């Protein structure tokens, strides 16, 4: 089943066209990886999916992006971002909030009132989902700056999950992490895909091969090839894809 559908999506920074007519289907209960060399527009494509691209005042998007058949440009902007959460390249927990409040940030900052019991439930459930509960249950009121980089990134995933999104966008979530933390996050992504749609941008092709069900290869703002991960890595249809995954350029 298709969760998100991109139809002829162009993205611009001022006059500079960064995405050139992307058509892409993102499937439910699956991990979709976006790969490609630096500057090919992977992150821009990802940021179009929850309209974060438009945060830059000169940036705009044309084309259609459908979420469950509904055009996200006609939906309430804040609702789109609640439904399509995001995890960034570098861990970015709020340094002035406790670990617990970071998980609850989406609720606390939007002014939603929760009972103490609800807060504890949401916090525990989401920290368990990201396998961080055992490491933090005794210090929930500590600041997140005391956690390691990998733990901070998992906390950010918990923060995004607590908001109850339907899709999570991950922009190279492991690029700033050590191999052990990377492995934990990859395992987490695989476990989460049964309940949530994940779109991940990665520089690391082995990572895309390990964790994704679908892979899209981008080059110079265009989508060169898109398909089942195994097919893309084993029998790519396009010469450019083959050259990239075999390391001839990149």
């Amino acid at each position, binding site marked *: 089943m298709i969760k998100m559908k991109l139809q002829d999506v162009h993205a611009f920074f001022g006059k500079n066209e960064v995405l050139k007519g992307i058509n892409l289907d993102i499937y439910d209960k699956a991990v979709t990886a976006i790969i490609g060399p630096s500057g090919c527009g992977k992150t821009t494509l990802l940021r179009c999916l929850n309209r974060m691209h438009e945060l830059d005042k000169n940036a705009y998007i044309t084309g259609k992006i459908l979420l469950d058949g509904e055009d996200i440009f006609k939906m309430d902007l*804040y609702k789109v971002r609640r439904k399509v959460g*995001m995890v*960034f390249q570098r861990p*970015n927990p*709020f340094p002035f909030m406790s670990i617990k409040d970071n998980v609850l940030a989406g609720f*606390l*900052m939007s002014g939603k009132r929760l009972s103490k019991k609800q807060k504890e439930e949401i916090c525990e459930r989401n920290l368990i989902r990201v396998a961080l509960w055992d490491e933090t249950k005794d210090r929930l009121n500590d600041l997140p700056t005391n956690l390691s980089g990998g733990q901070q990134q998992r906390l950010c995933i918990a923060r995004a999950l607590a908001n109850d999104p339907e899709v999570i966008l991950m922009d190279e979530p492991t690029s700033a992490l050590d191999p052990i933390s990377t492995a934990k996050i990859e395992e987490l992504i695989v476990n989460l895909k049964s309940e949530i749609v994940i779109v991940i941008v990665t520089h690391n092709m082995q990572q895309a091969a390990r964790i994704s069900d679908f892979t899209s290869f981008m080059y110079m703002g265009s989508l060169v090839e898109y398909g089942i991960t195994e097919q893309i890595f084993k029998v790519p249809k396009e010469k450019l894809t083959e050259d990239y995954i075999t390391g001839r350029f990149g």
Partner: protein
Amino acid sequence: MRVIIDKIFQIFTLSVAIFVSIILIFILFQLIKDGISSLSLNFFIESARPVGSNSGGFKQAILGSLIIDSIAMLIIVFLSILGGLFLYVYPETLLSKILKESMSLLQGTPTIVCGICVYYILVRSMGHFSGLAGSVALALVGIPYMVLASEQIFSMTPTLLLEAAYSLGLSRTRVILYVVLKFAKFPLLAISLLTLARIAGETAPLLFTAFGNSFLELNPLRPMAAIPLQIYVYAISPYDEWHRLAWAGALILIAFVTVLSLILGRYRRLGE
């Protein structure tokens, strides 16, 4: 040759530093020597007395400064945070550019001009001098400094945190309330203390506004005494007795600013 030039420059900078330090130490030494001898309990609990009574203190000036500076800081902090936020949120608008330019201009304006402006606008319309007019004049001195500093502080909010908040589906207002202002809490406190340290020693803006008062006056709608004003009045008087009190007042002022700096240092560490 390179080593020689380096040495000459080192000696030059070192001697300038020593020269400046000597002047500073001399001022502090003089201040402590002349000030401390006049400091007593009476200095804090007695108001001004006529010459020859061999007593009298700064009570009315200390309390006056406390009231005038507190009101001024309330005005400064409130308006500056709003002004700084406006500059941060709408940096490209014409109003922002005008505001920023006028703040830079006001920052370089002699403080006595602020006093004269408030005299014409507030004192004349009220019909008399008042502590409140003094606070407004001091606020005019402090606001430009703090508005520009607040804008700088707000712009230092890491993009990473802003994006994290936006990605949770928060509106700009909420991002400003919960991320920008929270992140700026400690730096804003530090800048407020610096602004307080700056306005606490200002005399010129108070001359035509608070005016001074030899008697204890706690109503800010009446003319009020303030430490810098009292120092000014005593310092230009021909009486040794009043000169000694002026030194003691100056010492108190310096001590106050030093305490503020120490608190600032502590908060800076907390902020980090």
